């Protein structure tokens, strides 16, 4: 990544982390979703793990907070406290250029899920997995191939194909290349 782009990206990530924490405090799920989408453009171009990890975490938090009964789980306070403190520390460490500590903060958010138990653990794990696939689908939508996207996010092509098939990606006018008349004719002649 070029130096000017690195600076821009660093500022962008700090903005997302700080505002994600604020949105969680205010239970502002609309802002959380917007912040997650904002990372997808950068993730599609730079394809760096920091952007992708933050996109997935913020989107997962949006999905959790959008569910009204999340607070009933006994482990919720521990979970959200860990998330909040690590988002805050991640922003501070990134601003100071402490990249290793910043990544440790992101890792700690993922690792707190492992410390959960029962239904809450299963639920949060599922939300993170779905968020991963959802963000992958958005990157594929931006024009990066299925194979490249699946590899980038560590999911299988089956998961990505199944999810993206239910989106409107194929119906974008720019996707239209060869007419189906021509393609059907080619196929019928090929199998003759």
């Amino acid at each position, binding site marked *: 990544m070029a130096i000017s782009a690195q600076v821009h990206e660093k500022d962008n990530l700090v903005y997302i982390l700080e505002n994600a924490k604020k949105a969680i405090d205010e239970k502002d799920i609309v802002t959380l979703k917007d912040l997650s989408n904002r990372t997808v453009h950068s993730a599609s171009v730079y394809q760096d793990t920091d952007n992708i990890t933050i996109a997935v975490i913020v989107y997962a938090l949006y999905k959790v907070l959008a569910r009204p009964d999340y607070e009933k789980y006994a482990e919720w306070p521990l979970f959200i406290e860990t998330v909040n403190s690590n988002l805050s520390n991640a922003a501070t460490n990134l601003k100071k250029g402490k990249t290793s500590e910043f990544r440790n903060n992101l890792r700690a958010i993922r690792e707190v899920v492992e410390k959960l138990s029962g239904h809450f653990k299963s639920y949060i794990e599922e939300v993170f997995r779905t968020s991963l696939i959802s963000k992958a689908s958005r990157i594929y939508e931006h024009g990066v191939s299925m194979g*490249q996207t699946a590899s980038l996010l560590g999911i299988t092509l089956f998961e990505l194909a199944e999810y993206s098939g239910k989106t409107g990606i194929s119906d974008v006018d720019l996707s239209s290349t060869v007419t189906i008349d021509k393609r059907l004719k080619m196929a019928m002649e090929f*199998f003759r």
Partner: protein
Amino acid sequence: MKKALIFDSSTIITLALNNMLNVLQQLKESFDGNFLITPSVKKEIIDNPLNQKRFELEALQISSLLQKGIIELSAPEDLEKETDNVMRIGNSAFEANNEQIKIIHEGESSCFALAKLLSKDYEIFLAIDERTARMLSEKPDNLRKLFEKKLHTEVSADGSKFNYFEDFKIIRSAEILFSAYKRGFIELPANPETVIDALLFASKFSGCSISYDEIERAKQLSGKSF
């Protein structure tokens, strides 16, 4: 000249998710040609999903096709080298914010590479359901426009890189299913338009990049002789 259809992972995945892999056996037995996959594609559609319970069955069903020789693994000597070449060219074709955008991965690249390597001996078709590789070959400037639209930034393209991807003949699972139906390999209790509607929507919802308009047009062509 003998025919060969080189499958990208995306097309086999669409067929597997719809329990339609059997049409490959029927098509294979009915025409003089080969169905080929590369080692990279095998990894994506068999080796990796075998470790994931959700798609283990599909991986085993595809593996069975390979064992029966319906699809064949093709790995000529220069395939890895040519695959690297394809990735190098494809992944330096577009640039945004002074950054080259990595658009294709090993699996898709290996299909183009294998097609190039076998083109002297075979009439080659590619089966690709995913959108990006197909656009890169058939209308690369649309891919640039798509990036610009989605990224909200200027995207430049090195047109000289597009030459490599020109002139490939690409079909999708949608056309494979259409052909199988027209040849009598799919029997369902409905009129042709309804069957084509069902088959093509099933492929669309499993990842085949086909639009609603294309499905409508295919339905109109369902009674036509080719």
